[in-house]
């Protein structure tokens, strides 16, 4: 309980900063659009062929934009050595981790929901009835991605080549989660019955759980050494 209170305090701080400057989300959103732009320029999106890859495209955009948000997450704490003050404060590392992860998830979900309509228009994905299913997919997929990204954001914060290092470490580990999300999203976009894919939803949930626990246990070591 106490842990969650502290985590929430930290998350609220990040959210408040972001609500004020809107810097990161704006930049990330524009970046997502740019990526969409690049995609559409490099291969013309027409016909069913695109519908089959729509899920993949969407999550590609999310991943590339997302990892940039994650890089910032701990990097910004180093600006005035704020990280020292955080670690010196009587909150466990796990609280810092959870708070940051929460804030990042909110940012990414924002980003994703903002990108979604643009995407569907760009690639004229027909809007099915069971799109409601998309929400749990987004949430679970994003949380898995963010949890790992947040841990590694802390891991690489004082490392050379941070901006190169993070995607390098994050993506291979998140591959299963991404694949599952892609699978589910594509099913939804192509309008096939979701029933057969529910196993992926469970898989995602399990994935998230495992890495959340790992993060909670290990982040203290990362921060204090």
């Amino acid at each position, binding site marked *: 309980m106490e842990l969650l209170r502290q985590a929430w305090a930290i998350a609220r701080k990040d959210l408040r900063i972001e609500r004020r400057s809107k810097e990161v989300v704006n930049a990330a959103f524009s970046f997502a659009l740019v990526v969409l732009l690049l995609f559409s320029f490099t291969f013309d999106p027409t016909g069913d062929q695109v519908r089959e890859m729509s899920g993949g495209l969407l999550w590609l955009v999310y991943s590339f934009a997302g990892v940039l948000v994650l890089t910032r997450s701990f990097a910004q704490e180093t600006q005035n050595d704020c990280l020292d003050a955080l670690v010196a404060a009587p909150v466990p590392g796990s609280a810092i981790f959870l708070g940051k992860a929460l804030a990042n998830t909110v940012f990414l979900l924002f980003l994703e929901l903002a990108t979604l309509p643009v995407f569907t228009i760009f690639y004229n994905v027909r809007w099915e009835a069971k799109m409601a299913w998309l929400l749990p997919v987004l949430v679970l997929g994003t949380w898995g991605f963010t949890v790992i990204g947040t841990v*590694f954001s802390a891991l690489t914060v004082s490392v050379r080549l941070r901006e190169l290092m993070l995607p390098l*470490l994050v993506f*291979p580990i998140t591959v299963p989660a991404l694949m599952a999300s892609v699978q589910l999203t594509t099913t939804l976009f192509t309008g096939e019955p979701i029933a057969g894919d529910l196993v992926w939803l469970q898989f995602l949930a399990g*994935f998230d759980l495992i890495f959340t626990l790992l993060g909670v246990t*290990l982040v203290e*070591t990362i921060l204090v*050494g």
Partner: protein
Amino acid sequence: MKSQSDWIWAGVTAVMMVTALYLTFVWVPMERTMGVVQRIFYFHAPPFFVAAIAIVVSLVAGIRFLVTRDFRFDELAVASAELGLVFESMNLATGPFWARPVWGIWWTWDARLTSAFVLWLMFVGYLILRRAVDEPTQRAVLSAVLTVFQAVGAVIVYLANRLWRTQHPQPVIAGGQGSGLHPDMWLTFVFCTAAFMVLYLCLLRHTRRLERMRREIEGLRRTVHSL
């Protein structure tokens, strides 16, 4: 600083590798459908198993380091990871040469192949991270934590294979159908795996030593410079 045991290890390894070559290319019967290319099999799967073991070793060593803060474990972890990369590369490299004649393509993004590639990327990421951290203690701690995540990630990726349909043959070990290997093939396969395992252990001794020297030099230099 070659000790006698080094020579013994080197000898044993050499003998086993040569025997492995003999078994693979002379002794073992030809596979009916695939023909000679199938013999790649004996140098294709075993390296993967060794790589898998290398991860486990890195993982255990990494955890031991976090607990004891004894750099010997860090050395073991790196050494094992470096070798893991080498062996996984072997598995990755031999695969396409098999795929080309059998499937007609070098590569397909089937789950099993992908997982192999992901594993390879994890090794690479681990080693690149290490090179990006200057301060040895921090380097050791961070890379140890990373190993834990990657090891878990690797297991998940590997299990995820089972969920996907794959063009790639099912596991012979612990794999349900398709495990119908001729006993001689089995023997060769098992022996090759053992040979690669010994090779791994032999090289491990040296890479560890190398790593220790590296760290000692680093430390001496800093101490001298701080005078």
